Structures are given as C-alpha cells and as structure tokens.
C-alpha cells in the first residue's frame, strides 16, 4: 500500500474578534443603516426600513442617510466611529453583489 502525505494548501485562519451579540428584542431598539448606495439600495433599504417600522412600532429606525454612504466611505474608521457614537443597537448593511 502506497501512502502519500501532503500539506493542506489553504493556510490557517485567525479569528480575532467575535461577531456582535444578537439583540434580545427589537422593542425600543435603535437601528441604523450603512449603505453603499449601489444595487438599488435607494429602493431596497427604504423598503426594509418600512417593514421594521410597520411590524415593530416602537423600534427607532434611523434615516438611510444618517451615516456616510458609498463604497468609498462606508469602510472608513470615521464612519464606524459615527455609527458607534450614534448609540445604535444594531446596523443593517447593504447592498453587496
């Protein structure tokens, strides 16, 4: 019997930070949007916002343009700080394609 042993070529991954904890409820929570303004985000994100507002009347949905928009800006540290400073409980990010 021939045995051939060889390296896995994929390289190791390093998980350095956990995902944000999930919310226990949406009631009374403040939710923001970060938009790249691409892929019909001008239609899809307002629809999602309206669905939340309809189904959870006491949720506070921030305006779609509350934070800088566009691919060039949404990944910046400054934008992340603005989101943090706004005191949101959760953020919805869109759209990727």
């Amino acid at each position: 019997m021939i045995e051939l042993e060889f390296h896995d070529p994929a390289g190791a991954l390093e998980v350095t930070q956990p995902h944000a904890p999930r919310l226990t409820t949406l009631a009374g929570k403040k939710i923001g949007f970060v938009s790249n303004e691409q892929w019909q985000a001008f239609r899809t994100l307002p629809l999602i916002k309206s669905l939340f507002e309809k189904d959870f009347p006491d949720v506070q949905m921030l305006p779609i343009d509350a934070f800088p928009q566009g691919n060039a800006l949404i990944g910046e540290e400054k934008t992340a700080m603005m989101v943090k400073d706004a005191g949101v409980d959760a953020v919805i990010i869109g759209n990727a394609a």
Partner: protein
Amino acid sequence: MTNAISGLGLAPDAAMITFPIGLFLPGSDIAGIEARKQEFYDGLLHWQSSHAKSAGASRMLKVEANSYEEALQRANDLAITNLWGDGLPLWPATRERVNRMLRGTPLPRTHVIGKFPPRGGITTVETCAIALAMAGGRAEYLPVLIAAVEAFLHPETNAEQLQAASGSAFPVVVVNGPIAKQIRLNSGFGCLGPDPQRPAGASIGRALRLIQQNVGGALPGIGAMANYGGMRNVNLVFAEDEDNIPEGWPPHGTEHHGFARETNSVSVFFCNGATNARRRGAKKETPEEDATQGMYRLAEFMRVPNYTNLSGYEQGTPGAILIPGVVANNMAKLGWTKPKMREFFYQHSRIPQSEIKRNGGTAWIEIDASPITRESLKLDPWPITSKPENFIVLVCGGGHPTNSFWLQGYSPRVIGKEIRVPETFEQLLTQADRDLGCGDDVCRI
C-alpha cells in the same frame, strides 16, 4: 461576503440575507424582500455563527492507494473536492517537495508575509512553497514568488477589492535584474505564455493564482465575482528584455521604483485585459513615419472608457505597453525615450467629454473617492489617467517589429519589491542545469 468577513478577523460566516441578482438590477421587482422579512428580524435577534473560535492551523492530509499512480490521482481528486485545484494536474505538496522549494529562500518557513484577502488566510513562506510545489515549480523560483506575494499584499494595492470584485483583475509580475535569466524567465518571444525553454513564468504565475484561490478564497462565483476571470491559469509573470533596452533607457524597476540597476526586483500591478496591437506600418513609411504612426495606433488603442480602473486613475496605471527591443532601439535612434512616449500616450489617448457623457461615464467619475479623479471631469478631452508617469512602458517580446501588446490596467498602485535569494542560490542554478539542461541561449535548438 464570508471571505470579506473572515478577512477582518471575524468567523467566516455572517447574518446575511441573499437574493438572486435580478432583484438588484434597475427596474427590478423588490416585493420578494417583504416575503422574507422574518429573515431580517432573525438576523438581528437569533443568528449565531456556526464556526468555532479558530479555524485551526494548516494540516497534513493523506491518501492511500495500491500504486503511486493511483495515489497521485487520489491526491488530485482530493484537491478538486476541497476546491484547491485549477483543472490542471497538481503535484501533491509533500514534505519532501515543500522542503526542496524552501531551499530557494533565506527566510524561515514560518515567516508571515501577511493575510491574503479577502478570506484572510495567513500567508507564510511555507504557504508560498506549498503553492509552488503544487504548481510544478522549482526552488529557484521561490524568491520571485515571495517578492510577488509581498507586493500583492502591500496595503495600497487594494487587493481585497481586486480579489473579490466583478472586474476580472489579474496580477502582472514584471521581473528586472539578472535573476530573470538565471531562473529561465522569458522576456522574448512568447513571454506572456508558457514556454518549455523558459518555464519559470508559468509555474510562478500558477502558484500565485493557487494562493489567490486557496489562501485568499478567490473562488469563482463564491469568493471572487470576476465575471470572466481572464489569464488565471498562469497570471502574467515575465521579465523585461534588459539585453535589448536602448542605451539611456532605464529598466522598469529602476525607473518606476528606484531600484539600482542589476537589482533583482519585481513590479506588481493588476490588469483586466491583454491584447495585441498592430504597430508596424504596411507600405513605404520612412522610419519617422513608422514610429509616429505606430505611436498613434497604440495611443488610440488605449483610448477606451475603462471605468473599471478609476480606482487606479490617480496613482495606479492605465496599463502597460510592451514594445519589442528591436522597435525600442529604432525609436531611441529617432529621439524617443520612455518619458516622451508616456507623454505622447497621455495626450493622444484622451476621450472627448461628449463621449464620456454619452456612455454614462460621467456618473462613474462623479462617484469616485478621489477628488483628483472627480476633478478630471473638467478636462476635455478626458485623459484616461491623471498623469503621463502612470503609463508603464516595458521593453520585452520577441525580436520582431510588427506587433506590440497592451495590458489594460485595473490597478490602484504599482508596487515594487526587491527579490532576496539565499547564499546557496548558485547551487540551485547548477542543479537546474543538471535537471533541465543548459539554460543559456547558445544551448538551444
């Protein structure tokens, strides 16, 4: 998306709600979103990562068979089922083969070069040696591959976007210095493609592609949305033809990156197209007419709305024009230099604003992150790059004057890196002569 998330150090999954591409197109029906609204609510309330805290270290795999041939087949089958293959036969990266590759570098095997985007796989010297072993490479190629990976992972290449985006970027690695000839890297006839006389380029380029895919997660349609993915089997790895660069014309590594002549170096940029351009005249042109008409033909070949490359408008490159040595020397006799050629290309590849407006380019330029790029809308005709220096002019290709080649840029930066070889490099070259026959031109058929 999961690649991008793991590249940030998060577990490689996320609370995502995905829809078919049709929903994201102009005029689409977006009613399907409401039907799946519960998924949005669950994403904020109940989603949990299914991955453990760490994905673990690199491991050894084993196949068993009744014969070596069958074992080789099983190893290749395993590579395909694990999504590590490219459709061509692979050498299994055995310990012996990888250790042999590692003789090509003075660096320790555990030396970390960086995290390969977007997946974020930790890329070490050993990772490079594994890929080179799989690609059929040789130890003396490893210094070039490591330098190319260092350049690829430079923070300014924007590689995390190029690896994942739909624009089909592929890396181009240009080598300067004596190492090119030493390792049998092509700079002449057929320098962009595989060549059994000078096999280094195909192996190094294939190894780089395997790293992009296996470590960086650039899997077609999953981690990399490149619609067409051109040049992927071997990327482009070739040398400048320094023997035939006209006197007074600096080699690319010296001119663009400031390396001293004779320095072994790589220059890495990204392209999304590679095409032939007819340069020579067809009738009774004088040398001056042949040169000038050829320059106009090349400049007008470049004059296309390549908005994919707007991220490279300010500090990257609109592309590289490849000029054969025989043409470069004739043009040098007529007073042409690389800077003069770049200025010519800059001036004569401009596009009228009426055409930019007509094809919707105005909107793409307006939304660009760079103020310099946005300001360029005021220029009519519109230059395809912010300054002449961004054009790359390379002397390479066979000794034939008819055709040039245009590598169309998709490259936010052009990164140069010095190539480091081990003290025992000469031994590797001697071994290559024993294994492959004499590598000098005088030994060829």
